[in-house]
């Protein structure tokens, strides 16, 4: 089965991105986050949302590399994102997770969900993650502030764009990765207003039908 070159390129870039150093996490840590997300998505006996893998005694690929709060949060986001609440988010911060590092972690998990989602839907074998690139976190973060439209901190100025767009703005390289995937998987961001846009297969309304049904299946209110 021949996959479009632009889609292959975006997926390959995403795989390299999640195994490269970020602003808050090293390459090895990001690769461990990605592997933990993959394990959650592959879990054939998934834990319910209220049970975390570390308290259930599940061994994960993040053991020894990630703290328990990170392993538990990654599993929950990968597997039960619709069950997340503001109180849950605050509890992760109380357990020691830095809010900007949390945003970058979310960026890694959602990129994994995208690549995994394609291969799972198409019935194809998902490519393995590449080896982590050696590298430490850059520590470079944009100025951030609290937002009304998200519970995570966002790059200043807050609430000037849609919540789903500004959600990763505290980790701009993660948003860039999402935007690349978005363009190859769905529609380039700057073409969103073009209701006749198509690749010659699904019409825009067909794409929106798939999007709506998937969002309903995942119980995503937003």
């Amino acid at each position, binding site marked *: 089965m021949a996959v479009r070159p632009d889609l292959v390129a975006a997926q390959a870039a995403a795989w390299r991105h999640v195994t490269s150093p970020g602003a808050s996490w090293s390459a090895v840590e990001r690769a461990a986050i990605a592997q933990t997300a993959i394990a959650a998505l592959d879990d054939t006996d998934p834990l319910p949302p209220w049970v975390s893998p570390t308290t259930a005694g599940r061994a994960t690929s993040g053991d020894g590399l990630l703290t328990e709060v990170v392993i538990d949060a990654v599993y929950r986001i990968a597997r039960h994102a619709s069950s997340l609440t503001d109180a849950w988010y605050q509890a992760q911060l109380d357990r020691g997770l830095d809010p900007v590092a949390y945003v970058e972690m979310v960026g890694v998990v959602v990129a994994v969900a995208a690549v995994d989602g394609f291969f799972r839907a198409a019935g194809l074998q998902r490519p393995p993650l590449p080896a982590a690139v050696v590298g430490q976190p850059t520590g470079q973060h944009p100025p951030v502030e609290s937002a009304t439209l998200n519970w995570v901190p966002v790059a200043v100025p807050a609430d000037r764009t849609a919540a789903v767009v500004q959600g990763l703005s505290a980790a701009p390289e993660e948003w860039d990765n999402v935007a690349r995937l978005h363009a190859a998987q769905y529609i380039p961001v700057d073409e969103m207003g073009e209701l006749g846009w198509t690749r010659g297969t699904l019409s825009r309304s067909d794409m929106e039908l798939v999007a709506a049904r998937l969002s309903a299946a995942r119980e995503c*209110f937003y």
Partner: protein
Amino acid sequence: MMLGASINHRPSEQARTQPAAVLEEFVAAVTGDDAVRAEAARSLLVERFGIDWLIDASAVVANFEMMTRLADATGARMRPDQIDAAAPIRAALGLDAFPSARR
């Protein structure tokens, strides 16, 4: 540039038929646990519309596996005017019962 590309990529003749039921079954099947149903849904999509449709429908599925998690993990909320405007459709679809409902 992209606008030009969109003009040059008109829906095929096949795309002008009614693919909604095939696509709905595809999404339901590939998000479920029944591997046989999922393979049948893929086969039907390919049979009716071609392999490129399977690739592109799978890509849209992938995009919203990404965006739903992004919205829910960052606590994304709609603006109050959007919430108000969507009240009738939310009620019709039962969306307010979703655990992720943030208003």
